């Protein structure tokens, strides 16, 4: 009986340690949003922007990979061709959307990769190996599992509103806040109660040390990614020093 069967998930792609994935989310997020340009960064940036695509492909998330490739290249081409030929307000709006994509998309996709290929048990055991206190580990794991639920519930509320003919075209932002928020938080609270019952059943509140079936550990496949992260981080730090702490 292998651990694979006991895990019960059908994940077949590349298996990385959750800590490797977290390190890469961290590196891609920080450097692409706050890192500068020029020098070594000329090579670091495209490499990091390419990273989510590579990882999504390796973990067989085909549709997410295709979406990312299409969106990112559209934003990149837009930046090159459209921005130089427009100015004024239009230029600002284009900048906003293009800049948003080019800077946040890789980080968000890395986040998606982390969440979609890591089970909660994996996450918790990685957190424990890093000696993160439960006070942070539990809210974090709940939070990352909860994002898809938020989106789902939000869509469901929208459907219900449309079915009953509640339209928000009237331009009442406060009302909209109320009609959207209140049902969402009601069901979030219920989900929270279910979650905590489930967690208690699994012994989350007990004073004894919890055991975990997940075997977390660094393997050969982690090494290239960790080295790349370390190299990019070093390049970023070098850039920070060269630029007197950068803009931050």
């Amino acid at each position: 009986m292998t651990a694979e069967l006991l895990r019960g998930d059908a994940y077949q792609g590349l298996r990385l340690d959750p800590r490797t994935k977290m390190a890469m989310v961290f590196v891609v997020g920080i450097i692409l949003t706050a890192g500068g340009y020029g020098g070594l960064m000329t090579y670091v940036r495209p490499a990091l922007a390419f990273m989510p695509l590579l990882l999504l492909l390796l973990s067989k998330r085909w549709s997410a990979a295709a979406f990312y490739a299409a969106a990112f290249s559209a934003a990149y081409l837009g930046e090159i061709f459209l921005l130089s030929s427009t100015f004024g307000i239009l230029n600002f709006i284009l900048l906003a959307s293009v800049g948003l994509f080019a800077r946040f998309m890789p980080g968000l996709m890395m986040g998606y990769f982390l969440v979609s290929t890591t089970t909660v048990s994996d996450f918790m055991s990685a957190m424990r190996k890093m000696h993160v206190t439960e006070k942070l580990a539990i809210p974090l794991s709940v939070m990352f599992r909860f994002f898809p639920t938020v989106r789902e519930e939000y869509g469901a509320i929208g459907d219900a509103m449309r079915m009953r003919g509640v339209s928000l075209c009237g331009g009442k932002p406060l009302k909209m806040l109320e009609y959207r928020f209140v049902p969402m938080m009601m069901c979030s609270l219920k989900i929270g109660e279910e979650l905590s019952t489930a967690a208690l059943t699994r012994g989350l509140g007990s004073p004894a040390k919890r055991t975990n079936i997940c075997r977390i550990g660094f393997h050969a496949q982690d090494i290239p990614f960790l080295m790349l992260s370390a190299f990019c981080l070093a390049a970023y730090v070098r850039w920070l020093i060269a630029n007197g702490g950068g803009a931050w």
Partner: protein
Amino acid sequence: MQKSDNRLTPKDLINIGIFTAIYFVVAFAVAMIGYIPIFIPLQSMAVPLAGGIPMMLMLTKVRKFGAMLILAVVVGAVYTVMGSGIWLLPIGIVSALAAEFIVKSGKYQSAKKAVLAYGVFCLAVFGNYMPIFFSRDAYRSFVIESGYGEEYADALIRYLPNWIAPVLVAACFAFGILGGLLGRAVLKKHFDRAGMA
């Protein structure tokens, strides 16, 4: 029951996680308006206002020390990874700690103290603006280098002169209070009646 009632139980931690997720999504959606430079000052009003509802509900569900602090640490850390600068997290922790002591002084029962605490908590939003005021030139050249062009950078800087810093701090606080009041009103109207708060 557990021996000490002030400890955060797993149930509390799960609730905190859920409200942190909601708060994060709301704040992120609202903060997007800041991508158009004219609207950047509006962030200091919109984020506190929209976050008031989940925060007030969290404070009624988790009446213990640490809820706001954990939310601030998690949201601040995620925002730092997403590039809001190094100031947001430390400022968030300090203001959340201050807010924690305010709700504590009301023994976690006072609605007024909760609203006031959320106002203080919202001062963290100013952390977003700190790079602009404290390293203006570096920020400008960073924006230009990032490919946004001089036009954009100058517009950004022009809309945020130095004298506006205290105004922004005050706006964060005032709209935090307003958001808190809004949250209380929604709570009273919906959640009390449904017996959920």
